């Protein structure tokens, strides 16, 4: 339940790649704890024999044939870029 929930706001916000202020952390922690407490009611149901639903009306083998079509023009592809150079997207240096 809410009190003993394991919700780790620091870890989860980092995993979601969102910086939170201390104020937001406190607020979200308490709100999300109560939401998580609420959704735990699903635990009341025995679903051991139930198949999960991924799609409401599943069909199989939805594909297209391997025929190439036009690309976006490069200027259209880059027109919304926050930073670009040499027709590429500029990002901070990635150290891997």
């Amino acid at each position, binding site marked *: 339940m809410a009190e003993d929930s394991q919700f780790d706001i620091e870890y989860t916000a980092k995993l979601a790649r969102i910086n939170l202020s201390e104020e937001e952390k406190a607020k979200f922690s308490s709100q999300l704890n109560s939401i998580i407490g609420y959704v735990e009611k699903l635990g009341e149901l025995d679903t051991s024999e139930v198949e999960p639903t991924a799609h409401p009306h599943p069909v199989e083998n939805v*594909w297209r044939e391997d025929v190439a079509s036009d690309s976006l023009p490069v200027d259209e592809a880059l027109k919304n870029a926050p930073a670009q150079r040499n*027709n590429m*997207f500029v990002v901070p240096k990635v150290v891997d």
Partner: protein
Amino acid sequence: MEYEAVIGLEVHVQIKTESKIFSPVKAGYGHEPNALVDPVVLSLPGALPVMNKAALDGIMKAGLAFGCAIPDTCKWDRKNYFYPDSPSNYQITQYDQPICQGGEVEIELPGESRNVMGEHKAIKLTRIHLENDVGKLNHFAEDSLVDYNRAHTCLMEIVSEPDMRSGEEAFAFLTAIRQTMVYCGISDCDMEKGQMRADANISVRPVGQKEFGAKIELKNLNSITGVKNGIEYEIKRQTRELKKGNTIIQATWRWDADQGRTEPMREKEDAHDYRYFPDPDLMPVRVDDVWRERIRSEIPELPWDKQRRFMEEYALPYTITSVLVPDRGLSDWFEAAAKQAPDLAQALGNYVANDLLRELSEADQQLGECEMTPNSLLTLAKAVAKGVITKQIAKDVFIEMFKSGETADQVIERKGLKPDFDESQVRIWCQEALDENPRVVADVRSGNAKAINALLGPVMKKSRGKASPQVVGALLRELIDAGE
């Protein structure tokens, strides 16, 4: 204490298709940056993926070639992680229901020498699954530039069991995968173009111990040699550490080919929390026997099978087969001639493996571009076998044939290479040679049979190289014997 290495490989192979895996945009290499993108590739708001059927056909072909089981259903999952080369910040992949399960790759280890076939071994596979490739980062001093042309190229990931014990085995594993892929037309596996990439999981343990040691995931193995060198380096490093009494901590390292050493990579604390879940934008795949059999029927005879058959059926030496077989086109070309005259197969094999490859390379041509056909090569082998021309002359005839596309008979005719004398003339030349070299004759008569070879040259010279060495040898012997 003795240590042994345990190695598993994860090999990524791009499937050769016209369009991308989840977008209809052209798949390709060497285009202007960001020229092969659309809303799906850039992951614009509202864009949705649609499967490319050819990617499924391609991976099934690979799976069947490696003896994998193709289950009746498979599905798509999202692997969530943020990285600038991933436009959606999730990769569409197959987590718990891959399209290919199990299977094995037959590898050949180096023999005692180049002329001797090495030991063959089966490396077990865990699975092969399909996923989208990511874009490419170009690093500069101050920043990095991203090009998404490669993003959404069809990519399969082949995961081996920890079945390998040396860099050499890993090398052989990759070589075998590449050969099969190329044979089946699934991928060109050009590592320079990123069409094949490998990561290795390497651990070391005392010989006899059952449990695995802590593993290092080794990345940035950019060539097949890099895989071998990187793994060998890492095995030595881990062994050294263990011998010093240190422990290995599971981590990701990279191979620095320039420095020739491995080094640890920075890892984020949440690096492995990928939050896999079924991709709600894609429907599952169902495979039936009709589909499996159609793909199976498209698989050609595989390289190792072909090599064994060439050695058996045509009695080709291992060295010739190991030149012919890795190239499917070349071996098919050879066989188009050889199956018409199996008794000439060895000669044909030699011409293809030596003369044809040399001429192609000198002319900077592909096999498909060359004028010579298997049937015309056959005319040359037959001409030599019948003694119409000598092997020596045949070498020159081959070059002419390669250039002009003529048959051997046409070249022989045009160049007047056919002997313009009969056997009685050869007998005269032989007698002359005996008369001119009484010492050699005496030598032969005193029991040195080999000395007769010294008489061959003068006779061949008199015939301007056109006499059959077999005929000349026989006549010389006859005349020497007769004079005794």
